[in-house]
Every structure is written in structure tokens, then in C-alpha cells.
């Protein structure tokens, strides 16, 4: 076997020497035969002639020997490849267009599929993920507080379910330390990181390896051990994979933990959409309450049974089905659900436990599922256009090569050889395009992940590679087979009897070409309409007035630790505001509880003057509220219409005050001055006097509808835990951050600035998805137009080229230039009209599917449809005009003499 390979290779590379040896051996053979013949009495001349005749052609003997080895097959494949490469190099424009078309089409598909794979299809990187389930509930019981109404549980529920053995071998609880990032410190410099508190069996139960040090144990959980495991990513990013990281001390919100391990590479936690940097065992101290909340009635998540805040995972016991496990646990769950509540309220439906597959991360599907599938459909269309383009170009090209094929057939080439040749050429094209596509996809995937703010690793994996390879194989076969029909229909006699002009006309081919062009036009219209609608949506969102002046505004969070009373917290923030105000370049400073433009809000039914207001026409009584600092409206640039802004004189001991917006006043206090009326405070206990009315402005997000709002002063209302500082500065708002950080650190060395950014950026995060998809849709729409344009140009140029003689005859007979141009143009205009006629109805259907993603634009938006139609028309005219001009400039005599 090995010898065979070695000898084959040596014969491949030492062909000349092999040849010489063969010649010598055969010469010897002939001489020996001649000598033998002479010994039988022939003359020397006769003997030699006889011997030569007997052996036949030396070349054919040599060929026989050559074909006996495998290397001859390898050699002929190599020759095919070289011939194919030469053919492709002969038509560089064709090759470049094909390769780029394939690279863009396949690359875009690979990139989107790779995101989809990572976000929607990939399993959790845990051992035996099919046996792992997310626990969920139909609803939490009434009178409880929740973080997520389906996916979070109270501590007593966790405790009860883990006591039940049999159904689940492991019950794993986990909860973030903050809604965002949490303050950590290794040395002097505070930082922020994503951290979760987890049960002791987190790593062992999930089957996630800890590659350095150790994971947690159940004792770590019960003793609330001050230990931490960091993720591989964090280890890489923060410690450059220094083994000394294990054993280091990390201060989480100022409390010291020892790093005891590093989790396996690829495991980024079980939180949707973000990668966890470190884990600590479940803790029981008020500073480290779940979600970074202050204790509720003085109780942390462990002692407050009515706070449903823990997420849970379970591993099914061997041989137990999902249904059996739920049935076994249901009663335990329903009993534990009412710990701390007593009996269910009359008419209240008891919550039911359910399991969700841990196939993908919870929440990903709702968040990214629809847009991603939409995007996948879009790039699928682009791929379709790209493929049909290449097929058309190949058909056109190979029709031009029919004389070459015919000549080769006449010279004795087999049809099997043709087939191999065409397949080799398409394979070369596909390989080039595919290689480029992979590079493009790797880059595009990174860009997509960055734009969509997905922290989970999106890098293409094995599944994506299979996906791309199968597209490539499909493409290679398609491109090899499509031109084969015309190649095989060639007769060897063709070259002898037909001229170049007539041999290239083929009515049937150009008809199928027309159908493809019309369909491409239709697809192009669909993509363009979709793209235009999304781009218009994005522009509408971008131009929405926020009702405030965001330029010059910068925002960051501060979460002070070790403050033991409300008085201390107030003192901290008063001091902070005072110190920030005197920084150079600062115009004004304020604080707020819910950060503007971050989706967070406090919602409830309004209580005005001690009772729910009567709303005219039975409208909603819902109101949102926020707790803010002095000069709040002045700082964010919202005009005060009546009364006054909050000020430093609103202290804990002064009369409790509130500000409401216009809509609040109109809806709940119509036809009267709102000043002096009372509104319920944020804590649901205090009554605040309205002292001002401000203009409506955006609160949670850019695309929200106006809603009645009220504000109270942080000195008089709310928890005063983590607050967000808003600063208006002159010049670049971000330039103030180092100075601000210094101020904060002087007050507490453990505190980083949490998620610092400009207020504008903060608001734009609420339309990041729309902006991402608008950009992508615009990009893919343009890509489709570009592809259709090249395809159309290629086909038309080819058809016009074939009609050179016909056009020459026409012009010789007196046809005018304009008539010739028009005849070419008319062709493509008819195709465009058909394409648009097919495309518009499809686009209407697609736009209706899109309607939930649109903002400020109707699915039947005339402008978008006109833009799409005009673009397609423009492309068609431009792509036809060039070949048409070439055709009309044909000199009749040259045309007639051309063959």
C-alpha cells in the first residue's frame, strides 16, 4: 500500500526519468526479439521489422503501463484542474464576478446561519444537555414580587424541589448579582463584571468542568463560602490566562472572595444574552441580595418567601421522562409556592410547574427568533439570486464555448471527459467562492454579534461548517450540471458546418434565461421593499423627538456599599452631587433611580388625591413613576410648563413634592390646575404635592407611546440604593468620565462607574435591534440589486453578442441606431415589467409579516414600493443600455464578415 503510494508519487514527479527507463527497456525487448527472430533464420532487417510489428507502438505500451497505476488518475485530475484554471483565467471578469457573487451569497448565509445556530439551535455547553431542563411556572401566585413572571421562583420553592429526590438528580438555582454588571475589584482599580450567585451543585450538576482549581460543593452553598469561580473568557481577558489567578482575592461589592477555579473554555454561564464572568455560591448578606436589590422589608431573597427571583435548572433522573418528573414535583411545587402567603386567594388559579428544554438559552427565542428568521429568509433570497446568476453566466459562457466543445469532440474527446471538465471548472469556482465566503462570514459574524450586542460566542462551529459545505457541494453540482445539457447537445460536425454566429443561437436556452431574469427581478423587488420599509422604520425611530436635549448629557450608575441607613445613603449622594457639580465644564448634575432609555420603569395604577382617578372614556389609569434628584428637568433639558423643578431645598424633612407630565395632568386632572393636588409616591405610601408640570418626553425607550408620569424627590421617596448620575457638560460628554471616576473613588475605592455612556447612546440601545436589522436589510437589498444588475448585464450582453450578425444585417438593410437600441431595451423592459408584476404581490405579503417590526410606516407604504420599482427599473435600463449601445455601434460590414 505504502509502496504503491511511494512509487506512484515518484513516477508522478520523475516522469521524464521513468520515460527514459521505459524506452530503454522496450528497446532491449525489441532487440532481444529481433535476435531471437534472426536465430530462426530471418535477415537482420526482417527480424527487426517483425519484432517491431509484434510489439506495436511503443507509446501505447507506455500508456498501458502508465494507466496501470493510480497516479494516472491523479494526473488527469490535475490536468483537468490546470485546464480549468486556464479556462477561468482566460475570462477573468467572468471568474471574478462569479467568485464574488458566490462569496457574498454564501458568506452572508453562513454568517446569519452561524448567529442563528449559536443563538437558537446550539445546546448549552453542559454534559448530556438533553437531560437538562429549565424550570418554569404558568404564573407566580398573587401577592408576590417577581423578576420574570414565568422563569423565576422563590427560595422556598427551590428548597422544596431540591428535597424531592427521584425526579431530578440535581436542582440548580442561579441568580445574577445585579440587573447589569456588578462592582468588582482585584487591586486598587474598581471594575465591573457579570456575576451570578449559584447553588453548590452548579458545576457538578451541569457537568461543566473546572479546568483549574475546583468548583463549588454543597458545603460552599450552605456555609455561603467566600469563594469564586471565574469563566475562561474572563480569565483570558482579565488575567491573560495566568495560572496565578487561582488563589487571588476579588472584592465583589467590597466583600472579599477567593478565586478557587476557572471554568472550562466555552462555558459562558446560563444567562440569556450575556456571558457570565464569575460565579459565587448563594450568599445571605444584604449587600449581595439577588439582582442587586436592597432587602425587601429587611429580608434578602433567602428569607423573603414572596420574592420570586431565582432561576432554576434541573437534571432529569435516569429513566424519568419530562412528564413523569413534572407530575412527581407538581404538588410539592404548589405547596411551596404559598409559603409565606397562606392560602390562595378565592378564585386564584394555583401556578403549575413546567419544564423548558435547555436546548437554547431562555429568552433568546423571543428576543432574536423572529428577526433572525426574517434575516435568514432574506439572505436565502440573496443566495437564490446569486446562484441563478452564476448559472446564467455559466450557461452563457459555455454556449459561447460550443465551438470549442465541438472541436474537441471531433478530435476524439469523450463526453465523460467533458462532464469531468465542466464539474472541475465549477468546483474551482465554488472552492474559490467558498473560501472567500468563509473569511467573509467570520468577519460578518463578529460584526453581527457586536451590533446585536450578543455576548455569547457566535464563532462558526462544526455545524456551520457542514451547512456551508453542503451549500457548496450543492452549488458545485448545480453549476457543473446546468451547462452540461448544452455541452452534450453539441455534435462533432457543428464546428465544420456552422458559423460562430449561428452556432450560438438557441431559442430554448434564451427562454429559460428570460424566466430566470424575471424571477430575479421579482425577488429583487421583494428584498428592496422589505429593506426600504425597515430603513424607513429606522430613520423614523432615529428622528423621533425625545422631548429633551441629549447633547452634552452623560450617564453612569453608582451603587454605594456599606451604607447602613437611609440618612447615610442620602448623605453619600448629596456629597457626590456637590463634588461633581464643581468639576470644570459641568453645567448641572442630578440623579435618578430608573435610568432614562434603559427599558426600566416603575408602573402602577395612579392614585390621585388618595383615590384612583376617574378617567374620561374609561381610559387606562396606568402611570409610570421615577425617583429623581435636584435640577432633574433642567439637566435633561425638558421645559417646565407650570410650577417648578426639583431643587436642593427638597430635603427629607421638607414637604414631600411631585412633578407630573402634561399627559398625567390632562388625563387625571382635566380642566383644572394640577398644582396642589396629591399623588401617591413611588413607595406606595407617601402622598406628594404636585409642584410642577413638565412637557411630555421619552422615558423607557425611543419607540414608546406617551404615558402619564410622575416624579418624586430621591430625598423623600424610593430606596436610595443604586442611582444613576446624569451630568450635563460643555463639550464632549465622555471626557468628564475620568474626573467623575476619581470623585467617586475618593468617596469609596470599591466603586466603578456602572455602564457609563452618553444619554443619546443609552436611548439608542432601545432601537439597536431595529437599527441592526435596518442596516442589514439595506445591505442585503443593495446586494440583491448589485447581483441582479451583474446577472442582467451578463445575460443581455451575451444575447446581444449572439445577435451581432442579425443586427449587422438589419443595419445594412437600413435600420436606424435608435431602433436597434430600442429593440434591445424593449426586451429587458418587458422582463422587468413581468418581474415587478410578480414581485409586488409577494412584497405585500412579506410586508404584512413584517408589520410588527415597523414604526411610523405602513406595510403598504407607497414610497417604499416606488423606490423598489424604480431601482429595479434603473438597474434594468443601465444593464441593457451598455450592450445596446455596443450593438448599435456595430459596423454592418464587420458584423457580416465576422465569421
Amino acid at each position, binding site marked *: 500500500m505504502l509502496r504503491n503510494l511511494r512509487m506512484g508519487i515518484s513516477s508522478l514527479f520523475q516522469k521524464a526519468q521513468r520515460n527514459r527507463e521505459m524506452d530503454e527497456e522496450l528497446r532491449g525487448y525489441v532487440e*532481444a526479439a529481433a*535476435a531471437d527472430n534472426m536465430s530462426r533464420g530471418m535477415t537482420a532487417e526482417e527480424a527487426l521489422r517483425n519484432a517491431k510489428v509484434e510489439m*506495436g507502438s511503443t507509446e501505447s505500451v507506455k500508456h498501458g503501463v502508465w494507466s496501470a*497505476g493510480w497516479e494516472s488518475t491523479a494526473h488527469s485530475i490535475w490536468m483537468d484542474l490546470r485546464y480549468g484554471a486556464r479556462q477561468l483565467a482566460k475570462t477573468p471578469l467572468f471568474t471574478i464576478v462569479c467568485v464574488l457573487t458566490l462569496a457574498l451569497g454564501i458568506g452572508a448565509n453562513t454568517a446569519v446561519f452561524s448567529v442563528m445556530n449559536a443563538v437558537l439551535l446550539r445546546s448549552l455547553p453542559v454534559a448530556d444537555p438533553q437531560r437538562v431542563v429549565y424550570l418554569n411556572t404558568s404564573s407566580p401566585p398573587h401577592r408576590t414580587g417577581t423578576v420574570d413572571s414565568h422563569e423565576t421562583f422563590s427560595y422556598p420553592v427551590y428548597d422544596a424541589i431540591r428535597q424531592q429526590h427521584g425526579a431530578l438528580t440535581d436542582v440548580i438555582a442561579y441568580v445574577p448579582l445585579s440587573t447589569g454588571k456588578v462592582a468588582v475589584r482585584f487591586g486598587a482599580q474598581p471594575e465591573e463584571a457579570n456575576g451570578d450567585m449559584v447553588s453548590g451543585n452548579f458545576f457538578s450538576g451541569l457537568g461543566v468542568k473546572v479546568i483549574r482549581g475546583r468548583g463549588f460543593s454543597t458545603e460552599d452553598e450552605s456555609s455561603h463560602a467566600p469563594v469564586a469561580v471565574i469563566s475562561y473568557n474572563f480569565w483570558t481577558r482579565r488575567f491573560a490566562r495566568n495560572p496565578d489567578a487561582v488563589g487571588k482575592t476579588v472584592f465583589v461589592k467590597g466583600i472579599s472572595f477567593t478565586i478557587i477555579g476557572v471554568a472550562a473554555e466555552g462555558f459562558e454561564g446560563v444567562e440569556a444574552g450575556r456571558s457570565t464572568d464569575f460565579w459565587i455560591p448563594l450568599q445571605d448578606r444584604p449587600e449581595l441580595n439577588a439582582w442587586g436589590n436592597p432587602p425587601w422589608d429587611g429580608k434578602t431573597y433567602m428569607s423573603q418567601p414572596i420574592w420570586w427571583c431565582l432561576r432554576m435548572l434541573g437534571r432529569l433522573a435516569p429513566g424519568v421522562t419530562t412528564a413523569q418528573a413534572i407530575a412527581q414535583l407538581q404538588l410539592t411545587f404548589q405547596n411551596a409556592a404559598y409559603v409565606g402567603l397562606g392560602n390562595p386567594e378565592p378564585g386564584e388559579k394555583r401556578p403549575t410547574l413546567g419544564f423548558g428544554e435547555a436546548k437554547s438559552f431562555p429568552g433568546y427565542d423571543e428576543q432574536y427568533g423572529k428577526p433572525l428568521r426574517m434575516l435568514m429568509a432574506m439572505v436565502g433570497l440573496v443566495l437564490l439570486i446569486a446562484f441563478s446568476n452564476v448559472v446564467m453566466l455559466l450557461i452563457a459562457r459555455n454556449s459561447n464555448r460550443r465551438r470549442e466543445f465541438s472541436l474537441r469532440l471531433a478530435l476524439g474527446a469523450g463526453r465523460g471527459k467533458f462532464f469531468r471538465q465542466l464539474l472541475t471548472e465549477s468546483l474551482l469556482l465554488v472552492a474559490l467562492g467558498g473560501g472567500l465566503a468563509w473569511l467573509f462570514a467570520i468577519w460578518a459574524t463578529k460584526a453581527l454579534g457586536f451590533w446585536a450586542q450578543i455576548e455569547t460566542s457566535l464563532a462558526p462551529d462544526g455545524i456551520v461548517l457542514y451547512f456551508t459545505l453542503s451549500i457548496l457541494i450543492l452549488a458545485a453540482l448545480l453549476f457543473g450540471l446546468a451547462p452540461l445539457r448544452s455541452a452534450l447537445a453539441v455534435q462533432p460536425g457543428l464546428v465544420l458546418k456552422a458559423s460562430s454566429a449561428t452556432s450560438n443561437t438557441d431559442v430554448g436556452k434564451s427562454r429559460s434565461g428570460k424566466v430566470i431574469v424575471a424571477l430575479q427581478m421579482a425577488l429583487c423587488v421583494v428584498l428592496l421593499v422589505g429593506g426600504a420599509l425597515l430603513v424607513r422604520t429606522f430613520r423614523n425611530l432615529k428622528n423621533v423627538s425625545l422631548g429633551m436635549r441629549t447633547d452634552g448629557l452623560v450617564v453612569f450608575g453608582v451603587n454605594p456599599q456599606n451604607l447602613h441607613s437611609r440618612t447615610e445613603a442620602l448623605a453619600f449622594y448629596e456629597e457626590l452631587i456637590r463634588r461633581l457639580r464643581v468639576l470644570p465644564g459641568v453645567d448641572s448634575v442630578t440623579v435618578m433611580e430608573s435610568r432614562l432609555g434603559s427599558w426600566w420603569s416603575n408602573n402602577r395604577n395612579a392614585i390621585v388625591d388618595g383615590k384612583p382617578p376617574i378617567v374620561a372614556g374609561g381610559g387606562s389609569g396606568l402611570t409610570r413613576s421615577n425617583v429623581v434628584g435636584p435640577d432633574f428637568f433642567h439637566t435633561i433639558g425638558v421645559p417646565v410648563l407650570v410650577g417648578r423643578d426639583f431643587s436642593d431645598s427638597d430635603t427629607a424633612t421638607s414637604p414631600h413634592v411631585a412633578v407630573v407630565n402634561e399627559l398625567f395632568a390632562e388625563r387625571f386632572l382635566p380642566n383644572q390646575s394640577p398644582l396642589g393636588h396629591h399623588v401617591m409616591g413611588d413607595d406606595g405610601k407617601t402622598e406628594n404635592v404636585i409642584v410642577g408640570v413638565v412637557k411630555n418626553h421619552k422615558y423607557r425607550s425611543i419607540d414608546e407611546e406617551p404615558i402619564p408620569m410622575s416624579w418624586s424627590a430621591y430625598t423623600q421617596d424610593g430606596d436610595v440604593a443604586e442611582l444613576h448620575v446624569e451630568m450635563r457638560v460643555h463639550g464632549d460628554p465622555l471626557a468628564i468620565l475620568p474626573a467623575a471616576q476619581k470623585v467617586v473613588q475618593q468617596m469609596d475605592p470599591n466603586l466603578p462607574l456602572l455602564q457609563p455612556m452618553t444619554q443619546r447612546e443609552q436611548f439608542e440601545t432601545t432601537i439597536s435591534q431595529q437599527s441592526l436589522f435596518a442596516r442589514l436589510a439595506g445591505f442585503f437589498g443593495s446586494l440583491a440589486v448589485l447581483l441582479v444588475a451583474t446577472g442582467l448585464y451578463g445575460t443581455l450582453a451575451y444575447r446581444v453578442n449572439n445577435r451581432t450578425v442579425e443586427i449587422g444585417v438589419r443595419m445594412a438593410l437600413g435600420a436606424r441606431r435608435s431602433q436597434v437600441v430600442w429593440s434591445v431595451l424593449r426586451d429587458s423592459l418587458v422582463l422587468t415589467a413581468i418581474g415587478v408584476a410578480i414581485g409586488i404581490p409577494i412584497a405585500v405579503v412579506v410586508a404584512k409579516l413584517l408589520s410588527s417590526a415597523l414604526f411610523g410606516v405602513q406595510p403598504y407604504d407607497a414610497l417604499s414600493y416606488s423606490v423598489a420599482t424604480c431601482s429595479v427599473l434603473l438597474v434594468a435600463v443601465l444593464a441593457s443600455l451598455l450592450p445596446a449601445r455596443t450593438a448599435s455601434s456595430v459596423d454592418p460590414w464587420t458584423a457580416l464578415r465576422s465569421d
Partner: protein
Amino acid sequence: MPDKNSDLVQGTLEMLILKTLVLEPMHGYGIALRIEQISKGVFRVNAGSLFPALSRMERAGRIQAEWRATENNRRAKYYVLTDSGRKALKDETKLWGRQIAAISRILEA
């Protein structure tokens, strides 16, 4: 001597070549001549099938080729049987014997 040399059954040529090489190393023409002589002219091996067969067998490691001087002092490529070639000959001869016996039984039945 028949007009046309009888076609050899597929695969038997290699066996015959192995057999001729048992006694001594030979060059290409020598092999062809020996086969023709021993078969009394029934099988005449032409160069077009001899050399590819030799090349295949060399690849398979049944024979080895080396350049040597001939009796009249010319350089020629001699083929030498290897151990694996000897073994192959034994196996093939056994198989052939069984096949021949079976075929004669069928023809005589």
C-alpha cells in the same frame, strides 16, 4: 500454432509471470519467450499486456526490478520474485487448481 494467441483468463497472466520467475530472474522478453515456449505457442504474451502487468506486480510488491547485464552484455531490466510473490504464487496455484477441478467436473457432468 493458432492464428491468434488465445486470450488469457483475467488474472492468470500474473500467475504465469510469477511461475516463470521462480527459477531465475528474467527480463521482459525472456518472460514472454518462456511463456510462449512452455505453452508450446498457445499463449503469446505481447508487450502491450506484459509491461502493464509487470508494473502492477512491482507496485504490489510481488516482484522487484533491477538493471543487470544480459548474456550478450547489454543493460536490461531484470525482474526478481520477492517473498510475497512466492507466497502469492502458492496461493494462486492452489486456487487455480480448485477452479480447474470444479470446471472440469461441470463440463464432465
